[in-house]
């Protein structure tokens, strides 16, 4: 549980963060989104005290973060940044071992942890452990950067535009991987991005900031349906609104009894993907199967399309 209470920060008389309060639950992914200069990165960096707040406070599990020296606090909190920030003179293994070494873990424990994380991030330990970061691709460097941030199993992970330097295809994969790993480790993640699509793809809740103020803090579907201000609406864009709504829901909640022809889709498919599949194959209804391949019923396009409307 992270409680951000009335945080504010001024640089040279200019207010960059203005009375921001947020509460982030355990195991949640919260994405702070905003344009550059919105103060989103400053809020993030005030959580691990890379920037000291002028006013307000941050509590993690009820403890004021100012209760311990800043460097000790940071060792308890994972931190991953844009352009990965790997140490170019240290091997992948040494990079990942950074925080465990700072915490004084013994060698055997560090070695085991490094291999465990490399495996988790789909990098073969034997062939990647001893490489230098310069010998990795951009996507691999980014994965090592996140693995390094998670090395000491922090309860909280802060990420500042972690996928900003990746090309779109690798970025989508990296986002999906992060989501999967987060589900497994139950790490609380606070992620900063300027990309609303990324926020919607990743966030359990999204905090929209502009000019140092928190404009709206809500679930993605709430944000899409009822943006609090015009600016939030602009950030979301009007182009894909109905499709965005559909992407928040899975077909398992809309199964009806009945028959449908063609290949079945999984019950975890989003309504958006179901609609796409139906349009592409020219069907009005699609059979739905569970993980074991058992047909549960069907989902009709009428039902799906009704879900795409703002007010139901």
């Amino acid at each position, binding site marked *: 549980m992270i409680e951000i209470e009335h945080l504010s920060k001024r640089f040279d008389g200019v207010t960059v963060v203005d009375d921001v309060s947020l509460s982030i639950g355990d195991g949640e992914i919260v994405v702070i989104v905003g344009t550059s200069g919105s103060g989103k990165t400053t809020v993030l960096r005030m959580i691990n005290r890379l920037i000291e707040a002028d006013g307000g406070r941050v509590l993690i599990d009820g403890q004021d973060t100012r209760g311990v020296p800043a460097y000790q606090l940071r060792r308890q909190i994972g931190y991953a940044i844009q352009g990965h920030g790997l140490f*170019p003179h240290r091997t992948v293994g040494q990079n990942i071992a950074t925080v465990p070494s700072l915490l004084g873990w013994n060698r055997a424990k560090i070695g085991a942890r490094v291999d465990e994380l490399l495996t988790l991030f789909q990098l073969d330990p034997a062939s990647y452990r001893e490489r230098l970061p310069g010998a990795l691709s951009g996507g691999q460097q980014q994965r090592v950067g996140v693995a390094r941030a998670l090395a000491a199993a922090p309860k909280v992970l802060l990420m500042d535009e972690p996928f900003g330097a990746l090309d779109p295809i690798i970025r989508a994969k990296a986002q999906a991987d992060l989501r999967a790993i987060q589900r497994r480790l139950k790490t609380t993640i606070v992620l900063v991005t300027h990309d609303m699509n990324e926020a919607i793809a990743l966030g359990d809740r999204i905090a929209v900031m502009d000019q140092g103020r928190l404009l709206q803090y809500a679930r993605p579907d709430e944000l899409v349906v009822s943006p609090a201000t015009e600016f939030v609406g602009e950030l979301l864009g009007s182009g894909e609104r109905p499709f965005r709504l559909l992407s928040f829901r899975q077909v398992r909640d809309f199964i009806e009894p009945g028959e449908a022809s063609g290949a079945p889709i999984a019950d975890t498919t989003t309504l958006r993907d179901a609609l796409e599949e139906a349009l592409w194959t020219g069907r009005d209804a699609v059979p739905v199967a569970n993980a074991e391949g058992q047909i549960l019923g069907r989902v009709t396009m009428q039902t799906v399309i009704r879900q795409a409307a703002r007010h139901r």
Partner: protein
Amino acid sequence: MALADATAPTSNRLPFDRLGLVVAGLAIGGGVLPFVAFRANRIVPGKAVGLLEALPGWELAIISAVLGAAAVMAVLRLAPRFRLLISLSALVALAVAVGDAARFITPLGDKISRTSPGTGFWLLTLALGLMASDAVARLKLGPWTRIGLLAVVAAVVAAILWSGLWNDLSVLREYANRADDFWREAGVHLGLAFGSLAAATVVGIPLGILCERVLPLRAVILNVLNAVQTVPSIALFGLLIAPLAWIAATVPGAAAIGIAGIGTTPALVALFLYSLLPVVANTVAGLDGVPPEAEEAARGMGMTSLQRLVQIDLPLAFPVILTGIRIVLVQNIGLATVAALIGGGGFGVFVFQGVGQTAMDLVLLGAVPTVALAFAAGAVLDAVVEMVSRGGRRA
């Protein structure tokens, strides 16, 4: 036929190696100019002796063949390893020839006359050295191989010296007369060069770290050091005499630990002052070059500022700092010769004595080891810089 056609577009380029043409030109000049100079004693003007008269017939035939072959190979576009092999072999042949020439020309049992290498010999050495170093550069040898090659060259030179092959050459006759002095001054010379380097490293790196962190200080310190660097070396050695003499006379115990207006102390101090700028400037540049993301990540993961300095900043800056140290070492090995002017000792002693006595052989006795040392130090440190630059600078 088809093969010839396929290569036709490239044939409008000269089939010659451009640097090779220069090498061959120099070598031809070297072959024509006097190979050695003979003097009845060490200070009278010498008589030039061409290659043709300097060697017995059979040896002349061999050396001409080797040099001719080297010149031809230099001009042709051959693989660099052949060019290296032929140039090094020719250098060895040249070294043997100059020793033999001295023995051949010097009347038997004559200890007063002097035979020294002539313009032709130096030009040939230059040409072949150019060819060898060009071949080494083209081969892109690894750092260890380069150090190994340097060791082999040093071993060959040592073997030639030890074998007595050059004993009739003027420089070695000068050496024979003052072998004890030579080794003592060699020790002083190295002590001056490495001592000032060590002091400059110990002081300069922390000063560089300070400059990098405190911006106002950076401009002041770097400007002062720049100004020091512009003072001519002889002037700086001279300028230090007065203050150091004053310190020796007034500060109790200063004279006892060796501080004096002339001698080794001012020489060390002057070399130290010259060394500071490259060390400080390169430390600042190296630290400035640390990627900001790495810095940010290190902070964000909870490294203390000392841990960041020791584990991240200095290792990443190290190759650049080492480049500064390389500059200093090569510079100081050369500059240390000037120390002899104020009684600081070193190889400069022979240079200044030689100039005073118009005995060029004595000048060479001081100059040749200085140049060789500076060259070797530069080559070794270049290799070391390459070894420590792993990953760091490429990212």
